[in-house]
């Protein structure tokens, strides 16, 4: 089989909710020369294993499971006959937008006018946390456990301890319990839970699974298979407090300790990265510092609601369509920086001439929060949020009419 060298207007790396939403919107905007490259055997991305509901409340007014939400976009993609190849892993994207991918039929090389990066994210691991102790079988991240149970029909263990109150960890606490495992407890190093309140209620309280805040795993025991974990209380510096150790016999430790955007390809393409988001710096078109290279979804910054992912991807598609059709996009020279209590913002640069969607996360929980977008002393936009939580991304539109003559925006929350 000859390897394939192609020219395309747009290549989309990743056929999950972000990639598919972008593809459909691009097509409807008149850019039809698209190719989606997906590394799994099926489209849908991580949603394929998120079989719980709660997806699509904002988008479709329904509470769908992950596969159903994905199916909406897959159906739209198929309806339009948008070309896609599965079982293909992109191994390189050059700054000149040459995309190289590996497929069983041969190496695929596509010269694209625009490349859309929607590769999603990976999970933080035990090694990254440097949890002390031994290295037995039985330690895995929540997403891997989810994949084993929901896609591969494998049960990872029976007596479970979960570290991290991230949404995935809590979802898995429920899933494991429903399938007959015993979840001993969920331990969270921060003084506040990192997942959504809905999940604390419906995944933990419903099943009498205790949630212990300000606790962490301070030791792991077991030579062949996990035998127990030691849990310690932590101080204000998140360090284990000596003397508070308690040993919990178990056979499985599930880690839900954070998601990290998967940006190896982005870095390889030369895009400037943002240390706060772990994703590329983008402008209001979701364009990275490399012209014609765009990013949306979890690869740009970790989302909590897939509905926002689709929205972001569609905004990206508008920008990418304009780029393809006009050859370039207006310059975005006005920086957006983080002020008090704001962890990160997307985008980090704007034109100042258009309405744009601002996404941000606060650093700590704030009741009756006021989000302010300031240019020096001038207030450009303000938004009230009853309960601002780091676990819930905040999104709102900033109107162009307030942006005349701005030089730098600072977003803060009080």
């Amino acid at each position: 089989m000859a390897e394939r060298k192609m020219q395309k207007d747009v290549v989309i790396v990743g056929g999950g909710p972000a990639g598919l939403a972008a593809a459909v919107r691009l097509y409807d905007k008149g850019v039809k020369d698209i190719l989606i490259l997906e590394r799994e055997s099926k489209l849908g991305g991580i949603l394929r294993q998120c079989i719980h509901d709660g997806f699509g409340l904002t988008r479709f007014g329904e509470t769908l499971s992950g596969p159903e939400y994905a199916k909406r976009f897959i159906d739209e993609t198929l309806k339009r006959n948008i070309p896609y190849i599965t079982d293909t892993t992109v191994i390189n994207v050059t700054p000149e937008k040459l995309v190289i991918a590996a497929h069983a039929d041969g190496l695929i090389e596509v010269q694209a006018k625009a490349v859309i990066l929607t590769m999603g994210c990976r999970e933080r691991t035990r090694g990254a946390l440097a949890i002390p102790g031994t290295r037995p079988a039985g330690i895995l991240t929540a997403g891997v456990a989810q994949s084993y149970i929901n896609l591969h029909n494998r049960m990872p263990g029976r007596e479970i301890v979960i570290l991290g109150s991230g949404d995935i960890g809590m979802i898995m606490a429920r899933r494991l319990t429903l399938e007959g495992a015993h979840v001993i407890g969920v331990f969270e190093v921060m003084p506040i839970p990192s997942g959504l309140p809905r999940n604390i209620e419906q995944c933990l309280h419903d099943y009498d699974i205790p949630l212990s805040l300000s606790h962490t795993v301070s030791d792991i025991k077991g030579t062949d298979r996990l035998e127990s974990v030691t849990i310690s209380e932590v101080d204000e510096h998140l360090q284990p407090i000596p003397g508070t150790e308690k040993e919990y016999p178990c056979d499985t430790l599930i880690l839900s300790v954070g998601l990290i955007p998967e940006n190896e390809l982005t870095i390889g393409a030369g895009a400037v990265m943002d240390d706060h988001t772990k994703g590329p710096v983008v402008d209001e078109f979701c364009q990275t510092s490399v012209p014609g290279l765009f990013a949306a979804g979890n690869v740009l910054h970790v989302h909590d609601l897939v509905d926002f992912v689709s929205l972001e991807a569609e905004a990206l598609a508008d920008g990418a369509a304009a780029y393809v059709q006009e050859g370039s996009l207006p310059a975005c020279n006005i920086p957006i920086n983080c002020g008090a209590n704001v962890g990160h913002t997307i985008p980090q640069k704007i034109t100042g001439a258009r309405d744009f969607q601002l996404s941000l996360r606060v650093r700590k929980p704030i009741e009756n929060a006021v989000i302010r977008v300031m240019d020096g002393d001038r207030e450009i936009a303000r938004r009230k949020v009853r309960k601002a939580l780091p676990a819930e991304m905040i999104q709102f539109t900033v109107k162009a009419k307030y942006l005349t003559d701005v030089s730098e925006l600072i977003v803060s929350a009080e």
Partner: protein
Amino acid sequence: MNREITCIVCPNGCTLNIDFEKNGDGKTSVTSVRGNLCPRGRDYAVQEMESPMRTIASSVLVTGGELPLASVRTNAPIPKERIFDVMKEVRKVTVAAPVSAGDVIIKDVLGLGVDIIATKDVF
């Protein structure tokens, strides 16, 4: 007795402060709800305390398909206390491929007026 829960009806996520009593027959009745910005919050509080309802998702075995499992869910909430009974029914089921999202896998499970539907295509 008193309990605080987060309302999940809309993104406001009001903290509902609920006073309730446990009756002789073990049932709960709500005496007051505070903190809701709208009447739906009050309704949610009452339902949560007196007859909590839940949707659940799980999987059924598939034979002759490209995947070993099809994900399923309840197409409407069921009483929280019946979750494990419903799970028992779900565990009994094996379906033959092809399965389409939306297919009814168990009709009117345990007479609760709720179907178990497939949420994934498995060909």
